């Protein structure tokens, strides 16, 4: 796809890696823009940001954006990010994974990073399908869908990431869709400020695979109908995801051009927890705890007058 996009995004891309491998109309472009804008608005320096991705269409994002980037193995991004964060606690570490990447092959890494409260901003792109490998069933494929590995329609229940996030102990969980870019950016900004594991699930469109096989072959239609259509056959998602973002979509904070001054101030003024499904305000992340433990050990040693080794 070509990127017709904000000036901000352009400043954060690696031109030599373009064009992307993504299909025209894929929600991943919107998501990349929102992530970059959130980083920009938060005043983070590129050198201080690491983007760690898994494998999949989503996983390709780490290569396009001009941060310190690791395109890891399928599902393992949270584990790579854990090592990096503990080696460089000063860095803002963001993981980006597809739904299969995060909830199937990488499920244990995701749960464990949550339980540990590792300082990671984790973004999961839920497009209901395995995109890169060509449309096989994923752990979030709604029941009764067609996929290339469920020609006779799926009957497995889709996983609800929110429930997993609660059980895993993540201090922050938010959900948005690619139909609501302004609130999406804002949610990511909030997630970037969490000490510990902040999880953002983004409902995206794979119109060329999931859409084509399930009577929604056009990107714009699929995105516009995201709340109604994508969630239709997934009551769990519908219940949790549709209300906060739809409110934003129709309300005054739904913005087409988030660069304009009006847009800026309006986003800044929006303090409602749209899309934030839960947040534990007192969270202290793993790395802060670990390095304060080291500080204590050092102080104790000094007190005991032992020479440093």
């Amino acid at each position, binding site marked *: 796809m070509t990127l017709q996009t904000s000036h901000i995004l352009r400043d954060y891309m*690696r031109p*030599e*890696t373009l064009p992307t491998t993504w299909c025209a109309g894929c929600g991943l472009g919107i998501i990349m823009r929102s992530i970059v804008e959130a980083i920009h608005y938060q005043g983070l320096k*590129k*050198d*201080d940001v*690491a983007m*760690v991705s898994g494998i999949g269409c989503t996983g390709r994002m*780490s*290569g396009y954006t*001009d*941060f*310190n*980037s*690791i*395109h*890891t*193995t399928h599902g*393992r991004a*949270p*584990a*790579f*990010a*854990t*090592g*990096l*964060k*503990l*080696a*460089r606690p*000063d*860095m803002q570490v963001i993981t980006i994974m597809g739904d299969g990447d995060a909830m199937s092959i990488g499920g*244990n*890494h995701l*749960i*464990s990073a949550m339980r540990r409260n590792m300082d990671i901003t984790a973004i999961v792109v839920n497009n209901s399908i395995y995109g890169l490998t060509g449309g096989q069933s994923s752990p979030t494929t709604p029941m009764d869908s067609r996929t290339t590995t469920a020609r006779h329609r799926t009957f497995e229940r889709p996983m609800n990431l929110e429930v997993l996030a609660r059980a895993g102990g993540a201090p922050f969980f938010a959900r948005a869709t690619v139909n609501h870019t302004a609130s999406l950016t804002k949610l990511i900004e909030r997630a970037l400020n969490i000490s510990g594991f902040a999880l953002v699930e983004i409902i995206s469109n794979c119109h060329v695979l999931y859409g084509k096989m399930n009577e929604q072959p056009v990107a714009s239609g699929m995105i516009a109908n995201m709340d109604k259509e994508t969630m239709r056959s997934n009551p769990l998602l519908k219940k949790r995801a549709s209300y906060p973002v739809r409110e934003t979509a129709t309300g005054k904070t739904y913005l087409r051009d988030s660069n304009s001054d009006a847009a800026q101030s309006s986003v800044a003024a929006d303090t409602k927890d749209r899309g934030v499904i839960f947040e534990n305000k007192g969270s202290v992340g793993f790395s802060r705890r*670990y390095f304060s*433990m*080291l500080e204590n*050990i*050092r102080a104790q*040693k000094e007190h005991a007058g032992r020479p440093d*080794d």
Partner: protein
Amino acid sequence: MAEFEVMYGNQAIAEGAIAAGCRFYAGYPITPSTEIAEILSDRLPEVGGVFVQMEDEIASMAAIIGASLGGLKSATATSGPGFSLMQENLGYAVGSEVPCVVINVQRVGPSTGLPTKAAQGDVMQARWGTHGDHPIIALSPGSVQDCFDLTVKAFNFAEKYRTPVIFLADALVSALQEKISVPHSSELDIYARPKPTESPEDYKAFAFTKGGVAPLATFGEGYRYHVTGLSHDEKGYPTEDSALVAQWWEHMHSKIEDNLDDILLYEEKQLDDAEIALIAYGGTSMAADHAVAIARQQGIKLGLLKLQTIWPFPEKRVKKLTENVNCIVVPELNFGQVRSEVERLSAGQAAVVGVNKADGNQITPAEILAEVTAQLRNTP
């Protein structure tokens, strides 16, 4: 001045790691490697390092790669089942040229096998366990002293050649107590990771240098580069250009092949006049050493080539040995994984036989000697 201390193998590995500058460990408990994690969970925080217990060995391997990119010398330790799980990301570290040390205290396999018993069954897995025709370095300690010294070497090689180094220990040395000499830090030869000198714009993190590697920039220090498991160009961006992929392979193989003089470590005992030789490594080399001493008392001209570097295989040295002796006996706790390499190199020059076992028992000097005398009887 070096100090003498009594240590057991796993302890010497942990202390060797600290001495080598290891400041990050991620692992998952498994017998007979667990003491390494336990000791490092105590020692690393003391020296300002990071210890983290991961959810499994896949994650452990991933975490040490992440930490190494963050600038810390990194390691993990495991045994059979865990080593199998590490293969995926071990391949990642090979392909993306990220330094790290993977300690495998071998136990009897396959699967859960004999968890507490020594084995040497992972020699070929260390070589070929991850997919693709990749170069690798693997070292194997034959004493508690080796556990310390070779661990330091393992970190040095990892950093110098930007590769994972596999440390193939076994429960014979890992649980053994010995008095060893622990060098003072000023006496140790430690390879510090070099920093790039060029500008970030000119920096090529994956330069296809022949016989060497580019310095690996630490994440967060102004060199924003991309790391991927896909075939990549010198900047790290994915490519399907077969000419570039071919150049990459040349670089990958040459960085090891052109430095064999540095990488190949072995010890020779009484080989000068030997008519028959042992090739041994790891815990089994202790019995082999003992067998040589007894044989010499009996007037048998037996010598020993003790391998410390297993991969790359010391082909030249072994080939030369096959030209100088009539017979080579290879005792190992598997069914002939190193013997098959020796046979290949001998190509009929010297007879090559094994003393093999994988039932949890160790190979005794008497068993080795029995094979040696049987071979002497066979030779005209």
